[in-house]
């Protein structure tokens, strides 16, 4: 009786699993099929022949290592710069009262809602005047701070008990020391969360590197993989999927290793 009652639930779970997992499975199997096998009807659920050359072909068609290196450089730079600009700003907004603090904070919060998709044209004009098209700085600097990060970290800093700071001040600890020894360790969960969100967003970003680069020298992986489509004409989905697998794997591995933390990070973002 119990099993009969549970059957619909099990069935729905299986269907959901297939809907959300099978596309990825399909991407992996297509990436090792031969061209003939990808266009066969009915399609094979498990590849008959594993053609690993697809990866080699994708790898050779585009300067993959260069894209990968660029992705690493841009993502790391954005992460480091964000920490450098967020921490002092959040600290000032949490711990100081100064003239115009509310206006400045409001101004920063407003920028949270200005998406890159809205401002790319004037920034492109500005960067081309500066000769910054196809440079790392044009990919990094616009994301060197995060309004959302300042907002979250300010909340965290505000929750640090005043007594703790007063005690440190009595011990003649410098402000820098207070930040480093008290504020930052207490804010570690928030910082990890913000770091994860920034890493995922920057690594995955397609739009910004697409509109601000015209050459391979600074292009990042998502734009690079997309250029496979122009090189591999028409229906070469096996090679395209091979490139796609190489793009997706780092993020999926990160997700497998830190899925609890990542899900928590996004939940945390929505809760506040």
């Amino acid at each position, binding site marked *: 009786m119990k099993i009969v009652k549970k059957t619909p639930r099990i069935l729905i*779970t299986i269907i*959901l*699993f297939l*809907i*959300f997992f099978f*596309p*990825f499975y*399909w*991407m992996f199997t*297509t990436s090792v099929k031969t061209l003939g096998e990808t*266009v066969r*009807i009915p*399609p094979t659920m498990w590849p008959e022949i594993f053609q690993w050359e697809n990866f080699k072909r994708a790898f050779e068609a585009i300067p993959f290592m260069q894209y990968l290196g660029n992705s690493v450089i841009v993502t790391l730079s954005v992460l480091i710069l964000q920490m*450098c*600009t*967020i921490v*002092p*700003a959040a600290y*000032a907004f949490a711990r100081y009262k*100064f003239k115009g603090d509310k206006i400045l904070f409001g*101004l*920063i*919060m*407003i920028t949270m*809602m*200005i998406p890159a*998709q*809205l*401002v790319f*044209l*004037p*920034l492109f*004009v*500005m960067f081309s005047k500066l000769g910054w098209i196809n440079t790392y700085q044009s990919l990094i600097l*616009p994301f*060197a*701070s995060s309004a959302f990060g300042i907002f979250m970290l300010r909340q965290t800093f505000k929750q640090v008990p005043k007594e703790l700071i007063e005690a440190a001040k009595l011990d003649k600890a410098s402000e820098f020391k207070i930040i480093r020894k008290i504020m930052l360790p207490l804010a570690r969960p928030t910082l990890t969360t913000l770091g994860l969100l920034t890493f995922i967003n920057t690594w995955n*970003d*397609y739009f910004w590197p*697409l509109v601000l680069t015209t050459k391979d020298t600074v292009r990042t992986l*998502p*734009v690079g*993989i997309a250029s496979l*489509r122009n090189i591999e004409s028409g*229906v070469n989905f096996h090679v*395209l*999927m091979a490139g*796609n697998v190489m*793009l*997706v794997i780092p*993020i*999926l591995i990160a*997700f497998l290793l830190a*899925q609890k933390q990542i*899900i928590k990070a*996004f*939940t945390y973002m*929505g*809760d*506040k």
Partner: protein
Amino acid sequence: MKNELLKKAKPYLFVAPALIIFLVFSIYPIVSMIQLSFFEWDFISPTRLFVGFKNYIALFQDSAFYQTLSNTFVYMILTVGLGILFGVLLALFLNKKSKVNSFMQSIIFSPYIVSLASISFLWMWLMNTDFGLINYILSIFKIGPIDWLGSPKIALFSLVIISVWKTVGYNTIIILSALQSIPKHLYEAASLDKANRRQTFLKITFPMISPTLFFLTIVNIIASFKVFDTIQIITQGGPQNSTNTLVYSLYEYGFKFYKIGYASTIGVVLLVIISIFTIIYFKLLSKKVHYQ
């Protein structure tokens, strides 16, 4: 005296790096875009021609613009509506804490963290008319073949499907955390009163999660206006302009047709639309912080 000054300047110095970034890369471009919308410029020529409201008049007389606007809103309403609906259903389905459910939560969430560029290529392949998996599965049930991405009547809805598939996991985990923070004693009281499941949902669950749903709706709306990657990779705004949205046409006018002034005018329209929803969002956000 010098020390006093330094002390006063300190918070400003702390805020300065972040502030400069925002002024240069967010505020200035907005001002610059509004300014550019009153000019005619092809990006290459050294002079810009001031044309007043000509770009605005041309834009509001262009029937293609109205189609773009309507596509943007149809896309928004469908992705947000379906995203929230399925988010609620999935969250209710996975609400009980168990190993299977937390595994399913991860599976459903996984597309959300994968690059939208990857997802676009993947679905282009799944939705391929002749060899795609989806049409093959439908053919077993004697349906199709459906021209998912090539038919002007269907393409926009196909993009909606892709977007909902990618983002519904986010809605699900947010709604789940709202569900799990509902105090248990409310449900105990309801069961003492012999309330049925429908009543319990309408009288307890829904009111308790409705602030979260409202928050999610606004966030999803603003996100839907930014849609670009799927369009640029899969349809390029076609077929017959049926998937062209504000952001994509802003990109097209700017980067393909080099009509910088006209593109900026589209940008200003988008700015106004986003501002309206942003104001609602901040009203909500300040309320939420206030309650904490």
